[in-house]
């Protein structure tokens, strides 16, 4: 799955521009690590302060997400730092994200994933309500949100292209 990257695609044309883009991405990764620290710290605070009563499952979720974000942020940060030092690998990575076929594959895969997600949400909306009406409400809100965002994005892109 070489070249696989969610929301991939870039217009950079040389290594220097790509290096600047990676530097900007590194700042986002630092934000991701910070989010992870906040999530994990919140879980520990809830566990040990005794001020809030949260069940063990949710504590595990907060803690797991926090640690996951921290670890993935650090791994990608190290990867980007290594890439920026090696011109050959930097070029290889740049071609993977700027390659028009990879971008096309990414947008088609995203389209398929969105379609499947909509179908799954529709069935969850239809049958989830039998177990808990909240599931139906949540799913209908998610479907509406998806369609609204799609319509707005379409209008914005239509004006700019």
């Amino acid at each position, binding site marked *: 799955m070489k070249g696989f990257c969610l929301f991939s695609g870039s217009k950079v044309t040389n290594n220097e521009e790509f290096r600047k883009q990676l530097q900007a991405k590194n700042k986002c990764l630092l934000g991701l690590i910070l989010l992870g620290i906040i999530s994990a710290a919140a879980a520990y605070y809830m566990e040990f302060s005794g001020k809030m009563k949260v069940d063990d499952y949710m504590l595990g979720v907060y803690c797991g997400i926090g640690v996951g974000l921290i670890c993935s942020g650090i791994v990608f940060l190290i990867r980007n730092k290594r890439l920026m030092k090696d011109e050959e690998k930097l070029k290889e990575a740049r071609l993977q994200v700027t*390659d028009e076929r990879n971008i096309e594959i990414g947008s088609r895969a995203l389209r398929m994933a969105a379609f499947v997600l909509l179908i799954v949400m529709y069935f969850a909306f239809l049958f989830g309500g039998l177990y808990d009406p909240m599931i139906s409400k949540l799913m209908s809100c998610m479907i509406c949100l998806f369609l609204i965002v799609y319509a707005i994005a379409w209008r914005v892109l239509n004006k700019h292209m």
Partner: protein
Amino acid sequence: MKTRIQDLRKELGVTQSELADAVDVTRQTIISLEGGRYKASLVLAHKLAQFFHVTIEELFIFDQEDENI
């Protein structure tokens, strides 16, 4: 749509990697283009035509019926 990329590349003695490097795409894209599984964008078609010193029409053979031209 058929292409003459493979023929011209072999005539020049250029490898797929070298061609990919020259036009700033991955080798996999060149393989897909040669196999006719992927249609190049206008920019890539222009870059390839420039590389081989031919016109886009000489490099890409459009099927008039398939492409609805």
